[in-house]
């Protein structure tokens, strides 16, 4: 009886189900943005979402190439000075004009947001902004800074009028969330939804969707279900396990694009004895990775095509360097190392490891797409080549603490790890310097160099590249340093991730390599 009533209610509810208006776009996000303050948390979920409301002086296209944003043009006017011409007739959402003062204010605010867990100081550091006139600014630096435009392209510009004295809470409430972007902030309900509406006075191309609704749905299967049920029009970060099935679904359309995220293996280059590499009988032994032939054997023993085909279900691209094709400063000579089991065995023999050795591979579980499964495949491949590899998968929070500073004196703890990296600047120095330049706290190089690789030649050429304003010369230097590092097997590239957005039939997304999900790039056929 009561069941019947419940059913009747459920059936009645169906009658009230409304078809979603074609002008509203609902997007299911995989991670929840932590705030509506564009300078609070420098992390992809926030940076991606807030790009709808706020804009940068320099925008980036889907391959992270630089495009004019709030600045129409920029050029070097002295060795250490850049001049930016700001766009005229740009209005803030409240109607007040955008001027150089807003830019100067932004550069003061960005690195100084209270309680910020991850600040924008990196993009602002060492830069002094001066006003030439209302629509011209100059940015001067202490040293030559050829990647200055890439840094500038990470900072979202806020209104001085609304931002002065504003706290992160004021952005969350919408009071200070006044941007110049194609969408205006409407509502932020933490954990639940974010709503934007079209800015009809936008200076650029008029956005197609009148309203945007973003829903954070962290659980992968639930996100897919929300799309299939029609509760959202598009989802990001489609679980790889569902991709094959969704491909066959006539109601769904997938958009895929290679990302700038490299999945790679790092070996311990520094210590003479490394804790997780042991002789066959378990006795302590010298660090085998100090021998370049062992590193070469490891990279040859890995069948990247098999990992891509089996573990990643085809949704990845084998990697031979730090960034995929089309990026600034990469080498056109480097290709993914071919699988060569016999060659690997031979190299191990030459290095005196005819009987192999014991090794533990540490990997985060749940940080990158299929990370633990990839590590499992790698461990099996190495074991087949004679390096008896066991696997330890850790919670990301545990993994990164130990992999970065778990050893004595806050040194990296592990001997052999699987990690991922994406270039924040969208060009090769953003990978080369943090990954394979010598770890140096004062210079800020080698930040993510968890293998503590150190090669003076790579350091020197990288440093020279960062002193070179000439694009062609700089690209050549970056490529050369990359070739030296990869040839020396500083790290072992596995593959580049491919990101998949899934949308209802008729919608397509211009897949972005920086993993941003932008409603302005969603088009309807």
């Amino acid at each position: 009886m009561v069941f019947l009533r419940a059913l009747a209610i459920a059936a009645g509810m169906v009658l009230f189900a409304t078809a979603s208006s074609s002008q509203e776009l609902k997007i299911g996000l995989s991670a929840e943005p932590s705030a509506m303050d564009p300078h609070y948390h420098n992390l992809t979920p926030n940076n991606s979402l807030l790009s709808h409301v706020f804009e940068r002086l320099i925008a980036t296209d889907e391959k992270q190439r630089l495009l004019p944003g709030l600045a129409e043009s920029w050029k070097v006017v002295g060795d250490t000075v850049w001049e930016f011409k700001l766009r005229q007739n740009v209005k803030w959402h409240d109607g007040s004009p955008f001027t150089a003062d807003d830019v100067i204010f932004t550069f003061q605010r960005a690195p100084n947001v209270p309680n910020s867990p991850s600040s924008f100081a990196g993009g602002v550091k060492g830069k002094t902004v001066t006003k030439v006139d209302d629509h011209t600014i100059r940015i001067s630096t202490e040293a030559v800074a050829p990647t200055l435009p890439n840094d500038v392209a990470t900072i979202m510009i806020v209104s001085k009028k609304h931002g002065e004295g504003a706290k992160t809470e004021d952005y969350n409430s919408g009071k200070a969330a006044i941007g110049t972007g194609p969408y205006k902030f409407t509502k932020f309900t933490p954990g639940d939804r974010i709503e934007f509406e079209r800015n009809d006075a936008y200076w650029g191309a008029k956005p197609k969707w009148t309203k945007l609704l973003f829903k954070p749905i962290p659980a992968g299967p639930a996100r897919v279900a929300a799309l299939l049920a029609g509760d959202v029009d598009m989802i990001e970060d489609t679980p790889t396990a569902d991709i094959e099935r969704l491909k066959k679904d006539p109601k769904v359309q997938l958009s895929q694009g290679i990302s700038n995220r490299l999945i790679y293996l790092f070996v311990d280059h520094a210590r003479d004895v490394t804790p997780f590499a042991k002789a066959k009988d378990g006795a302590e032994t010298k660090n085998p990775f100090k021998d370049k032939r062992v590193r070469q054997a490891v990279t040859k023993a890995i069948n990247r095509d098999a990992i891509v085909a089996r573990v990643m279900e085809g949704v990845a691209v084998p990697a031979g360097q730090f960034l995929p094709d089309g990026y600034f400063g990469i080498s056109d000579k480097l290709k993914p190392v071919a699988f060569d089991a016999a060659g690997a065995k031979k190299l191990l023999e030459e290095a005196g490891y005819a009987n192999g050795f014991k090794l533990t591979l540490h990997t985060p579980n749940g940080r990158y797409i299929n990370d633990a499964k990839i590590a499992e495949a790698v461990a099996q491949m190495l074991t087949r080549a004679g390096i008896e590899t066991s696997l330890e998968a850790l919670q990301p929070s545990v993994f990164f603490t130990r992999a970065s500073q778990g050893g004595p004196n806050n040194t990296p703890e592990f001997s052999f790890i699987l990690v991922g990296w994406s270039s924040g600047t969208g060009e090769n120095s953003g990978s080369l310097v943090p990954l394979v330049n010598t770890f140096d706290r004062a210079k800020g190089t080698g930040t993510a160099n968890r293998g503590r690789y150190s090669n003076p030649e790579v350091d020197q050429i990288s440093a020279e590249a960062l002193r070179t304003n000439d694009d062609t010369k700089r690209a050549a230097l970056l490529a050369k340093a990359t070739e030296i590092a990869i040839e020396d097997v500083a790290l072992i590239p596995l593959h580049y991730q491919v990101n998949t957005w899934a949308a209802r039939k008729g919608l397509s997304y211009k897949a972005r390599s920086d993993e941003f999900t932008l409603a302005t790039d969603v088009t309807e056929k």
Partner: protein
Amino acid sequence: MTAYLLRRLMQTAVVVMVMSVIVFFGVHVIGDPVWLLVNPQMDQRDIEAAVRALGLDRPIWEQYVYFVRGALQGDLGRSFIFGEPALTVIVQRMPATLELAVAALVMAIVIGIPLGLYAGLKPQHALSKIIMAGSIVGFSLPTFWVGLMLIMVFAVMLGWLPSTGRGPTATYFGITSSAFTLEGLRYLFLPALNLALLKISLVIRLTRAGARESLQQDYIKFARAKGLTHGRIVRVHLLKNILIPVVTVLGLEFGNLIAFSVVTETIFAWPGMGKLLIGAIQTLDRPVIVAHLIIIVLLFVVINLVVDVLYTVLDPRVRVGRQTA
């Protein structure tokens, strides 16, 4: 009674204290949240600055002393992720969870009691056997699986109900809830049912057992002998007596509904405290984890206390003041 309440209060303080120590140090042992918070591109000095800003560079006992000092003044610390006071972050999400728990409780009562009563009154009937078998299924199926199946069937295949999130809210009598709008109810139905399933089964079993036991009692026989109608016996005499244990258990279960809505909230992306807790655990947002658990402990204590006190009101044989346990 006053002495009893005072003693309970002291016990509560000790429980909260011990719990906060365990959680605080436990989370510290798991790992360092900084590596999940910072942008990987940040250089070493900026990372160290972030560590200092969060106070994580201090020894753990010092952080704990600092935390206790704040907690005594009602400040449970700021969320590492959201930068707002942990209490604010949790309270923001509390209405959604309460709404879900109340809806599940209502479902448990409205569905569980009639079915249980039916099974108790007509134990040999085929329908009773189906009800009891169903309650076993309700007990044994894992919540996350049932949740996904509900989504698959009602949202994806039939398209009757939304699969995810909370619907629009409305405010009446100072309470903002999505249960006040028709659209909101559609969003509420599946997650509430998922959360209620276990409780429905529980209520069915309790009601059935109570009914079968009471039917044998003298007062029922006497009522029959007096010539009362069957309906009146069931409604007035039987139901009243079997409701006492049911109410007690449901009172205690209400705390469970709030505290353990984690799975349901995660699957249905329900913006409540449970989903917040899971996120906080994944990112080691210690202030939120600690504050969340303190609130839950207090909640349980208050509910237990209310149930205890109500018991003395409902049942004159019970005197809480003289309890020795």
